[in-house]
């Protein structure tokens, strides 16, 4: 499996937007979703986020695995851990919980409150993922650096992020090569047995040579940048960005969601909502 940002949404309406829009939208939605606790309001946010996501025209078959992983694994663990937490949070903390059933061997109470809180957390993650996908799939990987620079990040840090994104496919290939080389020596990357320490130790023959080799190879990059006088003056970026009225419109829409969410929170209108069909 090769790790890389894939530009699947190339040519879509969203990919034609200024890349700063694709970074600002999830940032704003993070703020908005953190203000909301009511699952009904978060479901409205999910609908809006889905509208935004659909503008990226990301082919379903190409991201099916990611979505299934997100829905199944993250959803399962969110629900499982939400249940263990007992749902005694927020407005539910002081009230008597509605016990639906008890898991026999452990005596854990499964409450309507716990399921409601877990569902709320799950819906929030889905909303964030919907606006996060376009960053990975509808933004040219080469635009990360310049977009962050134009958002106010210092040149050196923008270059650092740019380099990180560019290094990912290289590092990923190096990882595969190292696994193959170690497999020839008898290493079994598919072994699943053992606890955390065993698993960590089992990965050492892969990531130690990979890490040390990559860092040793960085000297060429450092020399190349130093020879081009990196960091001695103001940097000029090849790609020019222009924020158009449509970009303002999208950012403005997300800004409106943030303001609305904050207003609901401050007014006390976004408390945890007990799913009614659980307590009938």
């Amino acid at each position, binding site marked *: 499996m090769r*790790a890389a940002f894939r530009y699947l949404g190339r040519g879509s309406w969203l990919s034609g937007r200024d890349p700063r829009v694709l970074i600002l939208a999830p940032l704003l939605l993070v703020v908005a979703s953190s203000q909301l*606790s009511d699952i009904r309001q978060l479901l409205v946010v999910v609908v809006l986020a889905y509208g935004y996501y659909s503008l990226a025209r990301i082919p379903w078959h190409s991201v099916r695995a990611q979505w299934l992983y997100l829905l199944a694994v993250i959803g399962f663990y969110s629900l499982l851990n939400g249940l263990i937490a007992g749902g005694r949070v927020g407005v539910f903390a002081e009230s008597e919980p509605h016990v639906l059933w008890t898991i026999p061997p452990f005596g854990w109470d499964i409450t309507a409150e716990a399921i409601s809180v877990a569902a709320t957390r799950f819906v929030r993650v889905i909303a964030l993922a919907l606006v*996060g*996908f376009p960053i*990975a799939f509808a933004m040219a990987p080469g635009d990360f650096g310049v977009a962050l620079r134009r958002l106010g990040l210092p040149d050196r840090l923008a270059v650092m992020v740019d380099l990180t994104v560019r290094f990912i496919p290289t590092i990923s290939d190096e990882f595969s090569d190292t696994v193959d080389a170690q497999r020839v020596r008898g290493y079994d990357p598919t072994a699943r047995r053992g606890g955390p320490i065993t698993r960590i130790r089992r990965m050492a023959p892969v*990531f130690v040579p990979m890490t040390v080799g990559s*860092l040793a190879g960085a000297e060429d990059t450092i020399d190349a940048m130093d020879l081009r006088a990196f960091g001695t003056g103001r940097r000029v970026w090849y790609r020019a960005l222009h924020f158009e009225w449509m970009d303002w419109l999208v950012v403005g829409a997300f800004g409106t969601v943030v303001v609305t969410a904050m207003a609901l929170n401050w007014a006390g209108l976004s408390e*945890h909502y007990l799913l009614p069909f659980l307590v009938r």
Partner: protein
Amino acid sequence: MTTMTQAAPSPWSITTRTIVYAAIGAAIYAVLNYLSFGIQVPWSQEVSIRPQYGVVTFVGFTFGPIAGFLTGFVGNTVGDQLAYQDGFGYWWWSVANGLAGFVAGLFPLWMASRMTSAGSKAVTAAVAGVVATVVGFLFIFVEMAILPESTFDVMLTLNYIPVVIVNSIAAAVVTPILVLAWEPLRDQLGR
């Protein structure tokens, strides 16, 4: 004979070397986060077994606090974006990773006089990794102020303690191994 001396750069300066080493560290962290994202810690809230976490403390310990912070912060953000398409959703976890790298980078500044041999350096690296994890990940308690359903008990028992245990093990095992592997190369490279 003419000799030329060059002052060592301040650990707080952001040089080309800081940028490139941090970028490589972050890329390694992100890629390995992506490739091992399926190993969840049971009975925890989205805490994963991440042996690659040792790369964060190693970069901090070896290349300084700034490189450590950037490796942890950017690596975790990009890794989450690759794995979950949600790099910003839990930004406080990324900051916590960055702080761990930062704290690990402070140890060589405080304890330079005690690191006289490769063995003592490895032991210091292991201690630095564990302390950095315990201190850096305190930042995740910020979640209580951000997400309404998070309580102190949940944060402590289902997030902080599992992640500190798992990451401390990773840091204590991986950081000294990487330090010992890097030292001879560092001498060869003249850094």
